[in-house]
């Protein structure tokens, strides 16, 4: 039992101090019928470090890792190169094994980092303020709708068809229980978004309009007119960013009038990790700060007048406001926020812009190459590092066939919108800086072969 320091003689001595005969005396309050006599059945006994490591190595080998193969998946999680120093720094015990900074005098490291993170996020998203993170982009998206409801005292949100379908699902789950109305439709396999529908749907009952930017098919659109129409009706514009690297190249949602901007921060500093943990970004205009969910770090001074940082505006939160809190969130995603912040510091403005230009350039080249395959069309007019192809047949079996050829070729819309025949030929392809020219050629060749073989016909 390598993690347990007490010896048998320690235990005896301590029982003596307590005045108990045996350890069972300390569990007397557990009703006899609920006490277990011995170790739980169904679990093996303890294992050595080597045995555990071997077990995990065996399991890990059964997965196709992104870095081992040509890799083109996106749709809310992106493969970017994370500098080695990011993972080194987040593994420092003082960050890794600290708690939420409740005692600020001995948590300035985490607090200063959060203050820097909040500033980076606010600037990246084009907002006045940001919080210290949420669980992920999808939960942040619902929190934004919920917050817009508190501000406008209305219960109808209009969702763009370009919003990630899993985000829509998360919001539908919550709306079902809170009684909010969500106006939502599925996207069309087209270069055009449903902006016309959105503009028409906004009325005096609308709490917010939710638009993903770039959207699930990779399309980019100006949000200015949507913001203006929303504001005309006393509604808010919520923008959702699932690929924050894009904001090194395109305008921030806040610049175009978004009132709340949420996002998935995984792209920067955080690995794919099969879906989590990730880091939700949450930013808004300053006037709404008291309606924000989650932790906030603020600047202050100590008794000697030195600058320091504390968690602040806590009266919004569950541990004080209880059932009147802005959210039930307690833990956020502190260590992932740290990874985001370190990576962003390494990049800096120049690095982020260069990274974005590189992503976009590679994606444009890849899109042009893939669109040359007979029967394959590029759906998008505009995109950043992710675009949608329309294949001549159902995309989902094609993706599986590509995996058989050791190419992770993208996300089929059939996976995201099962049973929707109008979308089933769609393949969303993401191209980041980790993709080489050879990878694109490998995908193009494999795709062309797969399409000519009649898979999924």
């Amino acid at each position: 039992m390598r993690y347990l320091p007490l010896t048998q003689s320690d235990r005896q001595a301590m029982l003596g101090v307590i005045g108990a005969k045996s350890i069972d005396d300390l569990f007397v309050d557990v009703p006899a019928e609920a006490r277990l006599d011995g170790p739980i059945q169904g679990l093996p006994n303890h294992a050595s470090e080597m045995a555990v490591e071997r077990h995990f190595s065996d399991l890990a080998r059964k997965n196709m890792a992104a870095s081992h193969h040509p890799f083109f998946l996106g749709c809310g999680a992106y493969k970017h190169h994370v500098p080695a120093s990011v993972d080194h720094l987040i593994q420092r015990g003082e960050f890794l094994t600290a708690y939420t900074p409740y005692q600020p005098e001995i948590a300035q490291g985490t607090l200063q980092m959060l203050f820097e993170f909040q500033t980076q996020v606010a600037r990246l998203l084009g907002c006045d303020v940001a919080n210290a993170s949420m669980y992920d982009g999808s939960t942040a998206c619902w929190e934004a709708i919920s917050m817009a409801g508190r501000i406008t005292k209305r219960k109808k949100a209009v969702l763009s068809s370009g919003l990630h379908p899993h985000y829509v699902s998360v919001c539908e789950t919550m709306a079902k229980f809170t009684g909010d109305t969500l106006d939502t439709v599925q996207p069309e396999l087209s270069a055009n978004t449903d902006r016309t529908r959105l503009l028409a749907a906004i009325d005096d009952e609308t709490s917010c309009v939710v638009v993903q930017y770039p959207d699930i098919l990779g399309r980019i659109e100006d949000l200015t007119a949507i913001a203006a129409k929303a504001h005309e009706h006393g509604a808010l514009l919520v923008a959702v960013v699932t690929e924050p690297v894009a904001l090194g190249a395109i305008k921030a949602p806040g610049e175009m009038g978004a009132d709340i901007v949420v996002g998935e921060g995984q792209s920067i500093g955080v690995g794919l990790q099969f879906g989590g943990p990730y880091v939700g970004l949450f930013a808004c205009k300053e006037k709404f700060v008291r309606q924000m969910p989650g932790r906030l770090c603020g600047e202050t001074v100590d008794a000697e007048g030195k600058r320091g940082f504390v968690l602040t505006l806590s009266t919004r939160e569950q541990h004080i406001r209880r059932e009147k809190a802005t959210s039930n969130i307690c833990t956020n995603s502190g260590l992932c926020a740290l990874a985001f912040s370190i990576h962003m510091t390494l990049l800096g403005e120049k690095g982020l812009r260069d990274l974005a230009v590189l992503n976009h350039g590679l994606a444009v080249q890849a899109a042009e190459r893939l669109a040359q395959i007979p029967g394959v069309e590029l759906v998008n007019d505009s995109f950043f590092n992710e675009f949608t192809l329309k294949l001549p047949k159902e995309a989902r079996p094609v993706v599986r066939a590509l995996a058989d050829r050791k190419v992770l070729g993208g996300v089929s819309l059939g996976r995201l919108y099962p049973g929707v025949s109008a979308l089933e030929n769609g393949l969303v392809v993401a191209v980041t800086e980790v993709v080489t020219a050879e990878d694109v050629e490998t995908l193009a060749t494999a795709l062309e072969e797969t399409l000519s073989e009649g898979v999924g016909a």
Partner: protein
Amino acid sequence: MTRYYTEDHEWIEVDGNIATVGITDYAQGQLGDIVFAEVPAVGSTLKKGGDAAVVESVKAASDVYAPVSGVVTEGNDALGDDPALVNSDPEGEGWFFKLTLSEASELDSLMDEAAYKAFVDGL
């Protein structure tokens, strides 16, 4: 002008049909440093005993209840910039809102200054 008090530590001063409401010196002392106060919007209708305003210290948030029913005619905007007024002058500059009384008889159930002092001494 007459001043009344509630068991929830609000004071209300009545001048004709208009009353001014705030929290007592005892209440601000219990809350500690006030960092935020939210006053009701002009024109909102308050019901006796219902939520009217919010007052927050660093680690606590409290609702301020309407001592009587009425319609809000003015909120103390100065509290937005300087919530510390509630600490420094709770029963003067640190007032929360004014309202027109809709049911003057509701005042009868409130305490006068002496009764409130006895009430606080008993806490």
